[in-house]
């Protein structure tokens, strides 16, 4: 039980993610999460506005089943198997405190960004909407996200994925080091 409740170390989680990649390939599928967003747009009728969404989404329905599993699995793990919040490097906890984010080591997500109170402020709402927009837009523009490019793509040793992952890190580093000080 101890193992289930504690944080899974990298050498357990990494190989398990590779295992998911293998299982999906073995099922004759592939590992890519963000393409579900496109499928969901297509189901919602986005094909009326752009040819990008005019495709037979039924052929991609299988991935929605994976996504459904992810939602349920995440819920089970979050509510029943995770009694402690991520325990961070003390340097990071101090840094975040300086930004006014004091929920580190106490909450799974920062309450200063994700709480309902924050969502009901203009800034809090916009931060959520904009960050979601960037993820959705960027993933489709780059043709994949962390699962499609970083895991599947780099495992296949393909150049486009290597470029995309470098892009992911440039964007992430710019956000954390240059834009966070302006936001928080």
């Amino acid at each position, binding site marked *: 039980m101890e193992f289930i409740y504690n944080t899974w170390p990298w050498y357990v*989680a990494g190989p398990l993610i590779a295992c998911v990649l*293998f299982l999906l*390939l073995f099922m004759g599928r592939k590992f890519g999460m963000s393409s579900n967003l496109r499928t969901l747009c297509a189901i919602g009728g986005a094909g009326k506005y*752009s040819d990008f969404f005019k495709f037979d989404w039924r052929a991609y329905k299988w991935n929605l089943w994976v996504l459904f599993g992810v939602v349920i*699995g995440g819920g089970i793990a979050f*509510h029943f198997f995770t009694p402690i919040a991520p325990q961070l490097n003390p340097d990071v906890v101090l840094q975040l405190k300086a930004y006014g984010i004091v929920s580190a080591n106490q909450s799974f997500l920062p309450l200063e960004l994700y709480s309902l109170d924050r969502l009901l402020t203009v800034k809090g709402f916009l931060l959520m909407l904009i960050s979601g927009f960037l993820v959705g837009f960027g993933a489709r523009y*780059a043709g994949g996200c962390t699962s499609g490019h970083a895991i599947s793509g780099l495992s296949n040793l393909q150049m486009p994925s290597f470029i995309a992952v470098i892009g992911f890190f440039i964007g992430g580093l710019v*956000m954390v080091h240059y834009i966070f000080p302006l936001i928080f």
Partner: protein
Amino acid sequence: MKQVLYLFAIGLLLGIIFIKSEVASWFRIYEMFQFKSFHMYGIIGSAILIGIIITEYIKIVKAKDVNGNKIIIQPKQKGFTRYMLGGIIFGLGWALAGACPGPMFVLLSSGFVSILVLIFGALIGTFVYGLIKNKLPH
């Protein structure tokens, strides 16, 4: 129907990994971009390393999938601009939200209502890309 159940089960496993390894935690993503922990690098790095072995093995032995078809891994089209620009935009969002598309959905049932707005934003982002796709450099 059976296949659907297997796919659902694989998703279930993935969802549990995302939470238990804390990949879906905003704090872990922040810590990664501050280079203050090996955790995320270890996860992504070991997943890729083993992924390379799996992918090469599949190619060398010409492995077949569960239906008896040869497993084909479609390579991405060659290019630079779309991968770099799209990657940077994605990275900005990844660091701010602290979640990429998988973890976003993992957190859907966590009870944080904000996730709904995050996913809504991601859907709008995807939709807008579809609208202006032809005007963007690729």
